[in-house]
């Protein structure tokens, strides 16, 4: 089972990954966006980390909804409401349980990703964060591998592959869509940061040792 500490570890690991790769995200965003994705997410996740320290959440759901609220209020760019909605809806779907199973998390994340798709009006293949999140949720929701390992590393791989697969796509949403065919050949910054989020999830699970279904 996954407790509140697991979710705090996930968010903290995401914040660390954003710090580490902020320059990369901004570089990707300078190719097809407005060159602020790294710094925007950095500001948002610093606020999340601070809030987690100031008002420690009591449940997994509370940890995610707190993070979502902070992202919406601090990021400033479109990634704020999008990631904010993802985490907040996922948190709400988890309810007030003290611990959740990996299967419950997978189902809640599916709800969160669907809310992101609805908010942005995007679908897989539009060169957005959904191209990383949807395959990740699929992998997470699948039966765990027979070798006894958990689905988290598979989700991280699926998200990373999904982000890489945005390179040949043409953007249909956001600032990048104005570039038309010139958006082809660049990896989507949002899909890249989404892959960081899912990699951090796998990292948190690994630190947890054996994650049982």
């Amino acid at each position: 089972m996954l407790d509140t500490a697991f979710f705090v570890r996930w968010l903290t690991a995401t914040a660390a990954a954003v710090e580490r790769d902020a320059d990369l995200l901004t570089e990707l965003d300078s190719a097809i966006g407005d060159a602020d994705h790294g710094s925007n997410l950095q500001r948002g996740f610093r606020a999340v980390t601070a809030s987690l320290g100031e008002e420690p959440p009591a449940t997994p759901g509370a940890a995610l909804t707190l993070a979502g609220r902070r992202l919406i209020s601090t990021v400033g760019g479109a990634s704020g409401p999008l990631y904010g909605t993802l985490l907040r809806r996922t948190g709400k779907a988890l309810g007030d349980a003290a611990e959740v199973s990996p299967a419950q998390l997978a189902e809640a994340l599916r709800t969160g990703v669907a809310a992101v798709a609805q908010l942005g009006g995007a679908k897989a293949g539009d060169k957005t964060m959904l191209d990383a999140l949807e395959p990740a949720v699929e992998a997470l929701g699948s039966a765990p591998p027979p070798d006894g390992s958990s689905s988290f590393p598979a989700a991280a791989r699926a998200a990373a592959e999904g982000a890489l697969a945005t390179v040949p796509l043409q953007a249909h949403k956001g600032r990048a869509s104005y570039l038309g065919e010139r958006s082809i050949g660049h990896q989507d910054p949002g899909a890249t940061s989404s892959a960081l989020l899912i990699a951090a999830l796998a990292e948190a699970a690994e630190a947890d040792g054996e994650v049982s279904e």
Partner: protein
Amino acid sequence: MSIEAPVGIVLVSHSGPVATAVAALAQGLAGGGGTAPVAAAGGTPDGGLGTSSELIAAAAASVDRGAGVAILVDLGSAVLTVKAMLAEGDELPPEARLVDAPFVEGAVAALVTASAGGDLDAVEAAASEAYQYRKQ
């Protein structure tokens, strides 16, 4: 619907100067300095480009007279932030509404209608109608 309780208008832009200037333009064209309250929520709190949910919440609270608040937005994160705030449920006045309208033309139509005593539906209709006016 009475003029004593006008609909409030909030203008959300990526840019502080754009939001402020469009509010001033709408007030000027609404005549008499504008009867209905209008507030600008542009850019980030530190003056940068972007969208701030805190500025939006403050602007909406400042124009809420109990008759509803019409929120007009420009691009990208302005649209998504207001939608996300409305989905949250408690960050905006109960009768706040995202109005689908061109930013400048819609702002003028919304403020003129609100100042004439139109209710939230009338304000929304007038602002959205601005999409019908073709320039060529």
